[in-house]
């Protein structure tokens, strides 16, 4: 591949990535406006023993959160104590009110959902899943 070909390939990849990002951004907003549910920001990290999911849900109380998990997914649904209003653009600007956070999060590896632990502090929910054992430990003689 020549230098020019390589550069055009990089440009094409950059454009494809931008398009994917834009599609995701649009689908998030479409979901929010059609469902009345906000998609919370979240972060997934991994350690050798755990998969840790942090979810930002400002204004949510512990008793208003519903959490369900499988080996590969976490479902979160939470009601906001006070509704959140934003102005939506369109032919005419209109106010849209949101009352819930809702999200399905795919986990990067299989976990043991029965042993998950969750805590909420300052509106940040943290769920820790022990990883599902994929093999058995072998001691070296």
């Amino acid at each position: 591949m020549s230098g020019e070909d390589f550069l055009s390939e990089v440009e094409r990849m950059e454009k494809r990535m931008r398009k994917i990002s834009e599609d995701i951004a649009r689908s998030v907003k479409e979901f929010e406006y059609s469902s009345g549910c906000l998609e919370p920001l979240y972060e997934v990290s991994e350690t050798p023993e755990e998969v840790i999911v942090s979810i930002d849900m400002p204004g949510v109380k512990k008793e208003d959160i519903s959490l369900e998990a499988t080996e590969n997914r976490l479902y979160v649904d939470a009601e906001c104590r006070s509704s959140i209003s934003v102005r939506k653009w369109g032919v005419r600007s209109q106010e849209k009110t949101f009352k819930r956070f809702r999200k399905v999060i795919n986990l990067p590896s299989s976990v043991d959902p029965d042993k998950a632990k969750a805590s909420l502090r300052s509106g940040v929910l943290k769920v820790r899943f022990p990883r599902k054992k994929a093999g058995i430990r072998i001691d070296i003689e």
Partner: protein
Amino acid sequence: MSEITEVVESRSTVSKKPIILEGFPDVGLVGSIATSHLVNTLDFEQVGHVESEYFPPMVTIRKGDMYEPVGIFYKNNVYVVTSELPVPVAGVYRIMSKIANWMKSKSPSVILSLGGIPEPERIKLDDPSVFAIPNGKEAAEVLKGLKGIELLNEGFLVGPKAMLLKECRKIGAPAIGLFAQAYYKFPDPGAAAKILTILSTFENMRVDIGPLMESAEKIRVQYRDLMRRTEEEMNRMEKSRELEIPGLIV
């Protein structure tokens, strides 16, 4: 076609050894939230903006008025450069170099780049620490007057703020990076409030952080979209390197 990246001053200002703040979106949107609160609370006047073909073609509409998304504000010998757009990775060098040169043209006493430093255990911190990176001896002298700050001795700094500090050093403008421990991917008004507390050392930047903390939940919701956009750019810049430890011993 020639490349367009320029700082446009729409109103003239008279300043003497001003302080210049930079609050581009970054970790936890700390700089953005802090500079927005400062500009709104102290009624700064917009005196210019940054134009670049690297930014998406957009304007901000507020109460029927049109604004540039990357604005320059001024009041009481303080300039603030703040943005509703993250700096795209492709334009980081060009944009920050232009901004550094404009800042230098104002003969500032110091340039303060405000941001967050990712802290994985942020959830446990009620009072995040603030770390500083001066870009030279002159900046280090200014830093001595600021209380409650730790020097960042080892680590990586990635992105527009790294470029600004580097460019300023290259052209001889004193600059300090001020970074509060913050959530990496969540808007963090608490970290922004901590930065504003440090800035209150300067009389012309003293603001009440009470209203900021009272509306923290609303701010976290409002800034979600900017955080998502910023996260995309941070990923492209390999921002996660800030969590790594430098390997070379010099």
